[in-house]
């Protein structure tokens, strides 16, 4: 099934198992969401458990915090990650710290879903990847699925988590594993093993990375759409890269990462978000500290440019297989 169906299925399964799970956001109720991720849930569970909200992200998250404090498990949608900023205070100052500041008296089990990333000619306000703005915040978990199987399993884990989870959905992957070759058709998930999604309830635990390609030459650490860009670059350069999909940015599976880098001795960190202070910087800092004596070359970063996400020049901005391949060649030449 598609990633959209997998995400919907995760909410459906959770709502049917647990009456305290409620779903809401802008256009998510009657209409089923601008990306159709909540389609059918209002009809199935009623308007008390899946409903439309006024256009106020602060209100969506703030209300969800109150509901979580009451004892519900809200799973809310922010229509685009680019629109989460109005809710940022409620996320950072409230959701993330409630358990700590109240010493566990009040807790905040909630999921904030938001489509992230570019590749759809959405311009600067439909293309952003703000994950690093969450990973810096103690008390939050940040998850980025890269395929339907993980999307469903991780979202169920997130909904069942006792603490707030930011769930970033790479919108360019909703319908298939886009690898950055925008001039080629994308094979739909239905033709991909990771598009095979088990029925009913299962979880993919938070905090565990997945190795998507085994390799011996260089480790590429990435997540979201960039997983497929890295895989494409490996095929196209013929460089035997090991591609790690971290899946959960916080908490991070550092063991899998360091084991791989110690094996390959080379590392590239790859994401679509702007370079400076992106989550890639944290990955580099951790890798160079843990693998310093095994590294044969500096860790390289391939990321979005430090500019707003442009409309017309989308493919000059998006870090596609060419840029990643070039970095792979460069790092293999360093010794």
């Amino acid at each position, binding site marked *: 099934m598609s990633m959209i169906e997998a995400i919907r299925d995760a909410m459906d399964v959770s709502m049917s198992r647990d009456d305290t799970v409620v779903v809401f956001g802008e256009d998510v*109720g*009657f209409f089923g969401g601008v990306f159709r991720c909540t389609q059918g849930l209002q009809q199935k569970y009623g*308007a008390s458990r899946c409903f439309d909200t006024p256009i106020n992200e602060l209100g969506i998250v703030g209300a969800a915090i109150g509901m979580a404090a009451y004892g519900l498990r809200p799973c809310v949608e922010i229509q685009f990650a*680019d629109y989460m*900023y109005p809710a940022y205070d409620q996320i950072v100052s409230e959701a993330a710290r409630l358990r700590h500041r109240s010493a566990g008296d009040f807790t905040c089990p909630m999921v904030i879903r938001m489509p992230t990333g570019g590749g759809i*000619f959405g311009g600067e306000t*439909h293309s952003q990847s703000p994950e690093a703005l969450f990973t810096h915040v103690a008390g939050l978990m940040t998850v980025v699925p890269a395929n339907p199987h993980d999307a469903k399993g991780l979202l169920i884990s997130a909904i069942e988590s006792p603490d707030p989870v930011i769930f970033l959905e790479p919108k360019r992957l909703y319908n298939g594993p886009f690898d950055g070759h925008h001039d080629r058709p994308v094979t739909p998930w239905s033709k991909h093993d990771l598009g095979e999604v088990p029925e009913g309830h299962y979880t993919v635990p938070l905090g565990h990375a997945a190795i998507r390609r085994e390799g011996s030459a260089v480790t590429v650490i990435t997540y979201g759409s960039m997983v497929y860009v890295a895989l494409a670059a490996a095929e196209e350069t013929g460089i035997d890269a090991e591609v790690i999909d971290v899946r959960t940015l916080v908490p991070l599976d550092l063991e899998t990462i360091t084991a791989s880098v110690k094996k390959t001795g080379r590392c590239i960190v790859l994401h679509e978000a702007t370079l400076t202070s992106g989550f890639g910087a944290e990955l580099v800092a951790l890798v160079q500290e843990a693998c310093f004596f095994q590294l044969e070359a500096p860790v390289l970063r391939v990321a979005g440019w430090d500019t707003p996400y442009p*409309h017309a020049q989308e493919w000059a901005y998006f870090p596609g297989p060419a840029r990643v391949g070039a970095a792979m060649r460069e790092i293999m030449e360093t010794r």
Partner: protein
Amino acid sequence: MTTPLRFQVPEPASRPGGKPDFSNVVIPEAGSVERPNVDVDPKEIRDLAFSIIRVLDRDGRAVGPWAPALDKEALIRGLRHMMTLRAFDARMQMAQRQGKTSFYMQHTGEEAVSCAFRVALSPGDMNFPTYRQAGLLVAGDYPLVDMMCQIYSNERDPLKGRQLPVLYSSKSHGFFSVSGNLTTQFIQAVGWAMASAITGDDKIAAAWVGDGATAESDFHAALVFASTYKAPVVLNVVNNQWAISTFQGIARGGSGTFAARGLGFGIPALRVDGNDYLAVYSVAAWAVERARRNLGPTLVEYVTYRAGAHSSSDDPSAYRPKAESEGWPLGDPLVRLKDHLIAIDAWSAERHTQAETEIMADVVAAQKEAERHGTLHAGGRPSTRDIFEDVYAEPPPHLRRQRQQIGV
């Protein structure tokens, strides 16, 4: 325990398959609402937030105290502005379908609001619009070609391909850069107006927001600051009944109207028939005069209807009756102004058809001209260098390094 509470979610009067139902929209007679002086005490006119100011009656006559002093030429110009915007929408909507751009948003049914408001402004005044006020540009004689080049993100795009289509910007035409984030501009307009007052200028600002976007918290910031500093700003709420799939009741809640929001801040609030060009102009002129005379902000709710889809990515038939727009009781702003002009012998069916042909010809000519400079995926386009410029006035070292990496 006492009787259990029940959760209540507002629902529109009708949904797909149902009959259009606007029985909840109470429409007073044209000419029936009084016109206070601009220096009236806001307390005295609270009721205006719950009525609808209308000028054009059923027979196309301009009646009542709000009938403006616009001569025939001005009215004909207004009609041409609206016709131009509609023709422009038609061509650009089609261009989007043809893949010449990624995205488009129409104004169908709402042309009077921005077209008439623009005429009430003076040079140097500044609008802080949403994506649905291109009438401010059209009625301000901004070149259609430049608008189209922005939509096409081509080599002549004034915004260098950076912005989503229709998020225009033109300081010289009093049109602030449209943001993709809703409502942020509402408080910015108030700040601009405060600056005009701080410097002892005589320019005023106009803020724009849709019914759905009034729910955003920036709306509150704008009303608080406007109320506290009596900023010379007109706060415009375009109530076209729908956000995307959510009807106005979701944003409005229990208050009968959006104009009512002003009452909580002591800001005079007017509600006007947004499909009545004369009423819109007249109310706009009243609010603009208040601001200009340092009497402070005015909140204006334009009651209109989004006859088309929310955007080129939207299909309204999924959430509202297909024929709902035919049921809309305030009619079509173009037809109503046309009928008025005919009623006062300033216009005729023939001249109208002729005008339609002329205007469409102009728009098509502009489109040809624009397309010579390219469309989103073909022909001349902005350079990759444009990604890196204007991030800062001076590119800092890290951006220069990044530019060099892709050799531009």
